[in-house]
């Protein structure tokens, strides 16, 4: 038996060592993409935790965030602010697009989901699909169907150590997403609003009896989720340099997969799920086949839902919906 097992190791190990550089390269790429997935997955998981609704339009909110980043940076550049101070203009872009994107999330909830809160469960889902189609075509009609280019204003330096390269932008994305996740965790655990959010997620009726304004909490949830998606969209626009009106759909599904992978409704789960999905995707693209890169997320999703529907960190309480 041992002799049968031997060739396997003797072939695999040197190969792994030889491709070590590639391995670490894919890890870095995976963490970058994974951080973005995690930020979007947080929006899904927060909304699902409270409303038990798959917010199909969340991917579109992320796409709108990316567009807003390009638009606002364009405005600031035209106004001469970027020449004056690049940092200031970038910070303002981040703030403005997050704010407007949160406003979009807030409005979508008020218009399309709130009237359906007591309807059968499939109705809000279909409404969400409608919102998603609407927003996609709205952006296509107002901004054109061609790719938009992110202005080349950010100087990118490449950090290199032993064949593994990492751009400052990648480092920036990883750090920002980790910081935002930590911030969100603190917000949910420590503040009064965060506590109220957890209470509403556990039991809506009880929470409202205890004097929590449910409508307000749901709005806050949508605002936070959309803000995180806006930051993710902006960073992706900076990273790839190109934005299209249809990017929201696929990334949205992948981020949802990440949320399910980590256990939907669980905030740390979404963070871990996003990072794991990013790693799986870039390692799969590096070692298996890059053509089916987009299919990995769906395959993982189906396997997870069939084998362990509660995800990595989800609680298994009561019957599943």
């Amino acid at each position, binding site marked *: 038996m041992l002799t049968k097992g031997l060739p396997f190791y003797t072939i695999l190990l040197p190969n792994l060592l030889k491709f070590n550089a590639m391995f670490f390269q894919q890890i870095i790429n995976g963490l970058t993409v994974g951080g973005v997935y995690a930020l979007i997955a947080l929006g899904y998981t927060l909304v699902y935790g409270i409303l038990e*609704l*798959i917010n199909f339009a969340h991917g579109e909110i992320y796409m709108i965030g990316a*567009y*807003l980043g390009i*638009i*606002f940076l364009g405005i600031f550049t035209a106004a001469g602010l970027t020449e004056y101070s690049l940092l200031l203009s970038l910070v303002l872009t981040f703030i403005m697009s997050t704010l*407007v994107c949160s*406003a*979009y999330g807030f*409005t979508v909830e008020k*218009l*399309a989901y709130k*009237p*359906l809160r007591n*309807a*059968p*469960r*499939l*109705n*809000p*889902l*279909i*409404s969400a*699909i*409608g*919102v*998603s*189609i*609407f*927003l*996609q*075509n*709205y*952006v296509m*009609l*107002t*901004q054109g169907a061609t790719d938009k280019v992110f202005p080349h204003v950010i100087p990118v330096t490449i950090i290199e150590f032993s064949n593994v390269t990492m751009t400052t932008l990648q480092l920036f994305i990883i750090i920002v997403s980790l910081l935002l996740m930590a911030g969100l965790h603190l917000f949910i655990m420590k503040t009064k609003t965060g506590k109220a959010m957890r209470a509403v997620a556990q039991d809506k009726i009880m929470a409202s009896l205890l004097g929590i304004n449910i409508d307000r909490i749901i709005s806050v949830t949508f605002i936070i989720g959309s803000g995180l998606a806006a930051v993710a969209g902006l960073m992706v626009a900076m990273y790839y340099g190109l934005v299209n009106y249809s990017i929201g*759909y696929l990334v949205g*599904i992948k981020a*949802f*997969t990440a949320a*399910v992978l980590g256990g939907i409704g669980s905030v740390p789960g979404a963070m871990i799920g996003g990072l794991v999905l990013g790693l799986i995707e870039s390692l799969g693209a590096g070692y298996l086949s890059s*053509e*089916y890169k*987009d*299919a990995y*997320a*769906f*395959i993982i*999703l*189906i396997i997870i*839902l*069939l084998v362990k*529907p509660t995800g990595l960190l989800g609680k298994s309480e009561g019957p*599943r*919906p």
Partner: protein
Amino acid sequence: MKKLIFMFWCALLTLPFMGIRGAAYLFFGIAVSYGFYVALANMFGKIKKPDLPVNMKLLSTALIIFSFALPFLVRDYYTDVAILVCIYILLALGVNIVIGFTGLLHLGFAAFYGIGAYSNALLTTALGLDFWSALILTLILSSLAGFLLAFPSLRLRGDYLAIVTLGFGEIIRLVLNNWDSVTRGPNGISNIPSPVILGFEISSLKYYYYLVLLFMLSAAFIVKRVQRSRTGRAWLAIREDETAAEAMGINTRKYKFMALTFGAFWAGLAGALFASKMHFVSPESFTFMESVFVVCMIILGGLGSVPGVIFGSLILVLLPELLRDFQLYRMLALGAGLVLMMIFRPDGLIRSRQ
């Protein structure tokens, strides 16, 4: 005042995307059209909606006669559109069995449609079979695909099922797109032959229209009969309350299998007819939007009602063809329409009687 603030808020939101002038136009546009709406509602609000007694039997007979006479009344272009309508009705009938009757929100029906189209295309071009034997194999294949996908749906409910089926649809599309050696990737398969009956090739639009129409009418008839059978009632019971249905002794597993297999069967038929009509298939025709489009049809018409499905497909295929100038705004209206339907009329335009 509150409504004015709301309009202003909407205009403000669109400001970065449409510029100052666009947002201002939008604001005044919404305000003026809302004013019109209020004025009209005040004028006509008091008139009660007429409750038209419609004789369904007479109406459907008239419609069927009209549909048979259609190719002689209109230009070839409209016959072409009518063929497309019939194919979509077939597809929507299949989706309706799963979503409308059984209540399983399935968002990957384009996959069965695609499997039907591709297997017909491959069997006729690569293996050289004739249309009819290929059709039989295609129907078996697509039903089998539906049967296999029923396994996950036994364990999942509601929105989880929606997501899994969506993923399934995307995987099939990616396979069609990337499996170059068989499906020729994004280039698609061309030169799919027309069907032949008794040595007579059905290549002209008129004859093909009659073929598709016959398939569509028989499908509508069969689905309607099945809906009223024991099976159909079991499906309805599952839709209304799965736990209660199980408690009443309905084998929910079996009936879910049946619903998905039966639904996939019609989708496969629609796909096969689509392939031999177009003489060309490519993965582009089987995207997620296609699935959503069909779901829109049955929601517009009314979930679970066969006349509703036919009506919904008719509207959603015909309207974009008639309003060519507004092609760009089609999807925008579709998205907004879905939300509005869900809020104001979740049962669809034609309510099913159950």
